[in-house]
């Protein structure tokens, strides 16, 4: 169990587990439905110019039956990257969208929808064919899933 820095202490009430991955990034496993509230509270306590979403990684884990979403948030005053790790079920991958809180997640959510199939509720701009060529999108497959052969 790693220690959360003081300013991010409010993550403690949402985090089920806290640990560290390389290179010294603190990971907090949370419920996917809590993520908008966590980000809002972080912005309120740290300020609007201190937090942005660096990367949104979706990993397909067919053995565990989930798609794991990692929200990498860069906290500028602390110079640290904090990871919010959540999982959505593979059969019905839905997650709340952060578009109204952090407009910078637009590109990340559109890409994850197009390539992995996770539907972000509240984001009206999701569409197939954003990155994936039309021929693949028309077949209805999400290319980055493990069971898809392209």
């Amino acid at each position, binding site marked *: 169990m790693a220690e959360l820095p003081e300013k991010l202490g409010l993550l403690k009430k949402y985090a089920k587990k806290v640990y560290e991955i390389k290179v010294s990034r603190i990971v907090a496993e949370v419920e996917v439905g809590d993520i908008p509230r966590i980000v809002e509270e972080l912005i309120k306590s740290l300020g609007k110019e201190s937090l942005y979403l660096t*990367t949104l990684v979706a990993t397909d884990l067919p053995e565990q039956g989930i798609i794991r979403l990692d929200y990498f948030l860069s906290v500028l005053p602390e110079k640290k990257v904090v990871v919010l790790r959540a999982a959505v079920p593979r059969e019905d991958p839905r997650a709340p969208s952060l578009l109204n809180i*952090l*407009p*910078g997640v637009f590109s990340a959510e559109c890409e994850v929808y197009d390539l992995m199939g996770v539907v972000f509720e509240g984001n009206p*701009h999701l*569409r197939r064919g954003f990155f*994936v060529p039309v021929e*693949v999108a028309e077949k209805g497959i999400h290319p*980055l899933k493990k069971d898809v052969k*392209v």
Partner: protein
Amino acid sequence: MARTKIVEVPMALEIPVGPQHPALHEPLLIKLYVEGEVVTKVEVNTGYNHRGIEKLCERNNFYRNIFLCGRVCGICNTVHANCYVRAVEAILDVDPPPRAKYLRVLAMELERVHSHMLINAVMAEVLGYDTLFMTIMRDREAVMKAKEIVTGARVLADYMMVGGVRRDIDEVKKDRLLKLLDKIEERVRYYRKVFEDDPTIFKRLVDVGRLSPADIVSHSLVGPVARGSDVGTDVRFEDPHEAYPEIPVMKLIKRDEGDSWARMMVRWDEALVSIEASRYVLQHLPQGNAVPDERKLPRRFPPGEAFTRAEAPRGELTYYVLSDGKPTPYRVKIRTPSFNNIINGAFAFVGACIADVPAILVSFDPCISCMERVVVVDPETGSKRKLSLRELATRGVSR
């Protein structure tokens, strides 16, 4: 599901910029809805350059991926390879020798110089200032020669390897590099003065595309775009890696004007800092062996994950590598700076005149090949012909 076309306000005219366009170097479609001369809505359409790198990475073993990831972008190829190699080294718990770290910094900083010269030359070209474009490109050849001396090739330097670099430099090369750096620095200082004083550039770039710090951070814009608006974020200082903490001449460059001119000036200042850093590296190279024996590198990879960041010339580049014990990675995620800057940055065009659109776009430093590298290995599907509409600029923007 494709969205249908919405009915426009009657006086709006739709102007496509791209995908084939002389102002853009790579295919990208920006649809501008204008009323008179002022842009009211923007739509950005991507997907012309898909190459399927993330899925390909899962098929190659970790070492072949170094060469693949170095080819995501031609201009920032050393930084991509470096970020990936550092992620793999983190999984393997390998620390390269100090001489290798210094040489890596040398290659990356030389690349930063030539990339910034390129984008400033493109900005001059886009403004119509062709003479300046040609002279900057002529002087950029000296930087390419320096890269050739260090890495063995002018553009695609396959220089990074797990545990060090792939070739070393000796005293003769060091002297040649120092002489070349002197020549380059004199020319870069001259061009910086041109960009500061020239009235053409002044009129076209100042007060164009002004962005506030709150906008930049909430839209996740990175790199010189952020540093030109007083947001002091630079991964070389936030995430100390390689030999950067040991180089005292590195400075964080930021400006507070927030317009296109400030962004280009940040790039010139960074180029000067990079030249000084390269000189420091050459004069203070530690002794030792920098080249690992590639035949003895580990074949078995322990399960683990790593998230590394690097400062590409365009901004913050992140790599996420997940290994599950096999010789091939389970997941590689590349998030390039142009991905954020171009797609999320479309709000900057609203309210500008049509003639300002190339100036703003080039000041964001678009590297379209960096932006699209996910999935599909199908060789026939190179370009899209069908375009579907999307509302982009109607999201709430604080002005």
